[in-house]
């Protein structure tokens, strides 16, 4: 009667099982850095590290009472990003140092909204979302108003905190503006 039939385990079976265990351990050890590598886009952005203060330009470039398209370079970028590095946004200067800086992305599904100064409306070409000049939702499918960047004026320059594609769960800026102009 062999060991196995007695309910025991032969030496070869034991070695085969240890072999499997060793391979399993190797897979786990290999998987750890692989998972870390794959999750890097999440980990890298922890604590708002994806967002930085960016210079949008001199105050004079934005006349009072007007809304203008401004561009900035992505703060986190690589040389091979090409044209995707340039990000547009809509800058509305109410008066003095009071601004509203809107993300280009429609709050519905992220398409680029266009400003129509004649009717003071933002319109989205994709599904017909429309916003008033203060970014609040006017009509169409968007669930909220336009996303806004946090801004500050420093040394005669308009700075915004940016770097992340705004969606319903990723903010344009780290904290929403407190003075309540959010849509």
């Amino acid at each position, binding site marked *: 009667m062999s060991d196995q039939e007695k309910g025991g385990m032969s030496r070869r079976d034991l070695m085969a099982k240890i072999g499997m265990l060793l391979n399993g351990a190797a897979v786990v050890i290999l998987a750890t850095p692989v998972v870390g590598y794959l999750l890097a886009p999440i980990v890298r952005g922890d604590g708002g590290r994806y967002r930085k203060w960016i210079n949008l330009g001199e105050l004079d470039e934005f006349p009072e009472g007007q809304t203008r398209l401004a561009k900035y370079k992505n703060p986190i970028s690589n040389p*091979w990003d090409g044209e995707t590095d340039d990000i547009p946004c809509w800058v509305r200067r109410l008066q003095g140092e009071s601004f509203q800086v809107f993300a280009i992305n429609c709050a519905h599904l992220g398409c680029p909204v266009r400003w129509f100064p004649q009717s003071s409306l933002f319109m989205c070409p994709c599904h017909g979302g429309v916003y008033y000049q203060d970014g609040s939702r006017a009509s169409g499918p968007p669930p909220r108003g336009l996303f806004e960047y946090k801004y500050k004026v420093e040394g005669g320059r308009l700075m915004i905190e940016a770097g992340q594609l705004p969606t319903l769960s990723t903010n344009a800026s780290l904290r929403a503006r407190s003075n309540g102009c959010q849509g």
Partner: protein
Amino acid sequence: MSRLAKIGQWFDARLQLSGEVRETMEHPVPRTSASWFYVFGSAALTVFLLQIFTGIMLALIYVPSAGEAWNSLQYLNHGVTLGWFLRGVHGWGSNFMVAIVLIHMVQVAMFGAYKFPRELTWILGVFLLLMTLGMAFTGQVLRFDQDAYWGLGIGAAICGRVPFIGAWVVHLLLGGPIIAGDTLSRFFAIHVFVIPGLLIGFVSLHLLLVLKLGINDWPMPGRLVRRSTYVQEYHELTKKDGVPFVPEAVWKDMFFSAFIIVCVMACAAYFGPYGPNGQPDPTIVQTVPKPDFFFQWLYALLAYLPPAMETPALLIGPVVIIGFLICLPFFAGEGEKSWKRRPIAVVTILLSAVALGTLTHLAGYTPWSPIMNAWSGDPVPVQYLNGRSPLERQGAAVFQGKQCRNCHSIGGSGGLRGPDLDSVAVRMTHDQLVRQVLQGGGNMPAYGKNLNPAEVAALVSFLDTLHPANQVPARDAAQEAVAHDK
């Protein structure tokens, strides 16, 4: 013995495959299954092989870098001999592949082929459909143009609707905080390595199951599938009325596959390659992004769903549909196979087809979108200006200048987002028009802050003239009575 046969024997003495190959070729299929209805699976495989081949050809030139992809596509189109044609074949091949996979699926569903014992074949097929759609979407991203850029934006916006972990999902999809170099690189890896690898594995299993379980017999009304007897009945059928797969059935597969390849090449030669459209420069905001044909139904659906239903529909809808397809062979694994006695199946397929077709048709002219340049481009019809007072004409100028035309058509041109205004004066009184312009409502923005009183007066006096010559404008009877009393 010829030299060729000797070489063949030399290989077979080592590989020892000729037995299996002959057995596979000569395996009996039911005579009725050697039909023109059974050619779509092999055609899908043929187009898949064509996609692999042309994909490798394109990869010889294509640069998977956000900074260079668009330029390398231009080079493929204009700088490489017949590069445009290979791009065309790959692009049209993807259209054909999605179409044939869908037709194959409908045929299989109509013929009850997913029933016992072919449940697993069907489930693998559901995953093959999802992978095919995944290839179509990721392929559209690799054509790194404006539509690809904003398509990624839409993908990110959908991921951003996932509760709790939305931000993580967005960052994983994009490979970082925003659409950039890492985004294209990861879509390249998914399109070129991950999904094709899975596809090859799943297609192999799918085919293996067809060989092991036999091709579905032609459904006969009244011949019910029972788990206890089906396998035996099938073997009796193929024994009694079977024909060898080669050549009795395979010639139809080969004819159809060749026909499809010729069609793909004809489309590529006649229509040319897809794009690339404008550069993937997000600062060019004068763009109207649109997905490729097979995702346009979704594009239309997202315009029509009520806002409150969008997130549930986007996140739960796919789970329900995929879950239903996977579970189908388990709750309908026995019984009637013939479409003639399965009205619910037929109606479900027809309704799905009509719904998808209607949504795709609507996406062709996007009535929900404002026409961004209608206000500056479309003329006001002459008959709406002839013999009008200066105030009314000034109103027409306000109508154009304030972009009303982007959403409202007059004289058959303009946006379709709002109602056409050719007979608006019949529907609404003067006061109602003023209120509608100032306060908006019914999905129209309020213009109260953007128009001064003189502009409102001019605009509404113009709108008051918009009624057919033989129809009187709407009037407020109560107000007239009051005026009369005075």
